[in-house]
């Protein structure tokens, strides 16, 4: 590689930057590194890793109660990691990119992941459907089956609700909070609260009509 084409990865704090080799200062005791190895690269790597770790923690805290699958998130973050390195190779610093860049990259990575998966599944013939049989700790297979049957009946009862209450109730029972529901549907907090409340009332009434009551355990 000729000198004019040689690039090095540099990093200081949150900065990640690729610069021309001949732009490097003469002093070697600084956080720049020539080539793809050495302490500077380690620092760049650790900067990205620290960022990814913080981001992962934040995203998990948002998604854990709403059914986020860790494996999906990790797959997205691997893509994010690569894109951050590529951005560094383009001469950008994390500071220049801004904090929203990370979220944009993550959203794009998530969309790409889903697109790839859908395309792959369309070619597959097997329907990979998984059930987690753990209803409660130490639940017997019989309890697990009963639990699924009850859940299916509740799901069927929800189907009979009006669409706004149906969506509100399903989101509520799935762990989404009122702020999420209000934001997604453009409803006020009061309207969201009422639709959830009334939807649940309707659901209980339907379940009573269907002769369905909570399972007795213990």
């Amino acid at each position: 590689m000729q000198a004019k084409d040689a690039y090095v990865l540099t990093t200081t704090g949150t900065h990640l930057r690729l610069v021309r080799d001949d732009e490097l200062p003469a002093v070697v005791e600084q956080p720049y590194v020539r080539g793809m190895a050495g302490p500077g690269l380690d620092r760049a790597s650790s900067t990205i890793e620290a960022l990814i770790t913080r981001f992962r923690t934040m995203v998990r805290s948002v998604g854990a109660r709403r059914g986020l699958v860790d494996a999906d998130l990790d797959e997205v973050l691997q893509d994010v990691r690569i894109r951050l390195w590529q951005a560094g190779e383009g001469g950008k610093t994390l500071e220049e990119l801004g904090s929203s860049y990370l979220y944009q990259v993550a959203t794009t990575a998530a969309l790409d992941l889903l697109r790839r998966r859908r395309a792959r599944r369309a070619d597959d013939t097997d329907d990979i459907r998984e059930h987690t049989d753990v209803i409660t700790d130490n639940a017997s297979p019989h309890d697990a089956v009963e639990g699924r049957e009850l859940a299916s009946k509740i799901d069927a009862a929800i189907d009979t609700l009006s669409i706004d209450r149906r969506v509100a109730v399903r989101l509520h029972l799935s762990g989404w909070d009122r702020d999420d529901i209000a934001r997604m549907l453009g409803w006020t907090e009061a309207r969201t609260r009422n639709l959830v409340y009334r939807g649940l009332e309707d659901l209980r009434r339907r379940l009573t009509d269907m002769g369905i009551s909570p399972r007795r355990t213990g």
Partner: protein
Amino acid sequence: MSPDFDDEALRAAYKPVLQESTTTHGPDCPSERELLSAVRGEGNEAERLRVLDHATKCPACRRELALLHAVSTAEMRATPRAIRDISWQRWKPAALAAALVLAVGLASVVRLRGRDTEEITRAGADARPVLVSPSNGAAVSTGFVRFVWRPIPGVIQYTLEIDASDGTVLFSAPTRDTTFRATISPTAVGENRWLVRAKLQDGSEQRSEAWVLRVR
């Protein structure tokens, strides 16, 4: 209504549905772009309802919705000002309408003192506000209607709320009293609900049952 199926029991009973997981989509599944739009609250309400109605029932879409929401919400939290602006723009018409209704209602507030209030107070405190009058399912005429409920300890403020059957808030007014004289306008004709929310000193909120109020 089954009294045993409280919120917690319903969530627990519904859990097996949520544990079903697949990445296989059907022909009716919305695209990943449509899911993202719904998560971000983009597009019209009917479209968002359609997408979310499917996505909350379909295991494959539900999983994708959770991923897109987690990433997207993190983005929104990083730009709180943008969110505030979007929210305000979206809710501005509703907020304006609510403000007009509230202005009319507040003009009719009469703070009751003396015997009535004492009798109501003696009725005893409860963990959450208990509605007294108008009774559940009562029919009232438009004009002045007096709402009464029992007090609970540690309250900073009560809020009387009247909601239409579709969940729209028709009337909302704060008060420190346990009675409120509100003006029911002709636009409220039909079946509504009324309830009281109590804001407590510890920052929590207690909410009464919602009683049916028929306005003729």
